């Protein structure tokens, strides 16, 4: 996982010592801030692509996992014709499907972790939009960085427009808006992953079934506390999925299960929390403002 590099820019100062809002320091601050914003927004656009491809991987893994699971449910009742003469054919087939399900569980988990990483990257990026002056005022070498040295400098150039119209907080606002969508979507994806990881057939219970409160991978709680869990979303996470999970009903009803699975896959695919039009708009508008194509 990459962390946003600490950017620093150097400009040769020709101006005499001045206050941060003076025209000369503004003249130095602006190009540095512009470079930084272009850089951060390009990374945000890349994150969107990474999300799309991870999400699509996850979808095919979820589909295979579900198919392997449903095959296990249907196998005992299946009429195999001449094949039934083979000794233990059903048991063998069941074992095979079970192994497939295990394999897809592992893959899905990795994909889920990728999705978390992407959202974390986005959050880091959105927090790196400001550009702070570094070093002593009045030094002939004006330096800038995106981590703050002093509380006096807000890193926003005194609120002036960075390119044409928008100031730093406006860029941050848009970034937050889009990240909020991804956080919400990550939350849904996590629910789906928990559900998909915990489905198991009666014959071969999954070794270590997960619940809402389980950590899906080591260090997940810490990651989540940085993205999902700091929002209002968390309040709704149920303590346990025992009472509502479909696979915990006394008897596995093949039809009900396959309907639920269809719904899960549709939920995964639809990404209801990502408003595609709005996302396009945010990237288009920002792209126009910073004169970079963010497609």
């Amino acid at each position, binding site marked *: 996982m990459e962390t946003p590099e600490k950017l620093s820019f150097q400009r040769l100062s020709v101006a005499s010592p001045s206050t941060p809002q003076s025209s000369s320091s503004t003249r130095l601050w602006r190009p540095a801030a512009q470079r930084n914003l272009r850089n951060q927004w390009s990374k945000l656009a890349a994150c969107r692509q990474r999300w799309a491809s991870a999400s699509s991987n996850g979808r095919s893994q979820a589909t295979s996992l579900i198919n392997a699971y449903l095959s296990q449910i249907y196998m005992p009742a299946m009429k195999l014709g001449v094949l039934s003469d083979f000794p233990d054919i059903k048991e063998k087939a069941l074992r095979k499907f079970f192994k497939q399900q295990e394999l897809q569980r592992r893959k899905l988990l990795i994909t889920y972790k990728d999705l978390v990483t992407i959202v974390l990257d986005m959050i880091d990026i959105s927090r790196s939009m400001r550009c702070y002056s570094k070093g002593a005022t009045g030094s002939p070498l004006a330096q800038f960085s995106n981590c703050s040295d002093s509380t006096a400098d807000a890193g926003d150039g005194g609120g002036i427009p960075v390119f044409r119209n928008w100031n730093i907080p406006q860029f941050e606002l848009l970034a937050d808006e889009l990240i909020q969508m991804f956080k*919400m979507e990550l939350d*849904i994806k996590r*629910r*789906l992953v928990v*559900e998909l990881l915990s489905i198991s057939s009666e014959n071969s219970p999954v070794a270590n079934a997960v619940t809402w409160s389980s950590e899906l991978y080591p260090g997940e709680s810490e990651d989540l506390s940085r993205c999902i869990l700091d929002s209002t979303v968390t309040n*709704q996470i*149920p303590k346990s*999925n025992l009472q*509502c*999970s*479909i696979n915990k009903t006394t008897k596995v009803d093949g039809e*009900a299960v396959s*309907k*639920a699975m*269809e*719904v*899960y896959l*549709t*939920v995964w695919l*639809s*990404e*209801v*929390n990502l408003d595609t039009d709005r996302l396009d708009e945010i990237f288009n508008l920002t792209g126009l403002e910073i004169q970079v194509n963010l497609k």
Partner: protein
Amino acid sequence: MEAMLKKFQQKYNKVKDNMSQWEDLQTRFVSHFRNASSIIHRFPVLQDSNNFGCLKSYHALPDKLLRKQMDSLQTIIMSMKLTLDEFSNVVGSLDKIVRDSRQLIKGASHQQLHQTIGVKPSLTYCIEGLQTLHDMHQSEYRLKSSLFTAFCHLTFKPNSDDLGALQQLLVDQPNIYKEEVDSIYNIVFPEDH
């Protein structure tokens, strides 16, 4: 005569381009149709919130999901409409080729029109062939238009049998006879054989 035939062969090559464009449109149209059908099929399952398991009470997810699927369906239907317009453009372009060709033979004598040299077709045959190709595609376009209208009605009260039948018609393209098309081309381009 020879020169005139060459000109007709060029027209047939143009028609061929149009037909391959038609094929691309057909592929696109069918895939839109399939996607739209699967969304429509899914609606009843999505409308029953009992199928949502643990996600049932999550932030009005069933509603959101249904709305998002509706949006996708609408987008697909819009694309189908656009594709249909492109089909119509192909028919228009075939029509123009036929009209231009008729212009070509204006003033030709009866004998010139019906004369055949060796295996080469008569000019009349060339014109009629172009007209046939145009007519097939025009009928097929009309069929697709009606199928599309029928499909739009079905989205509100889906019936999987009807959807299946529509799809079959759409894929089959009953107005375009592949063999007839091939045989026209074989006659107009005898030297290719």
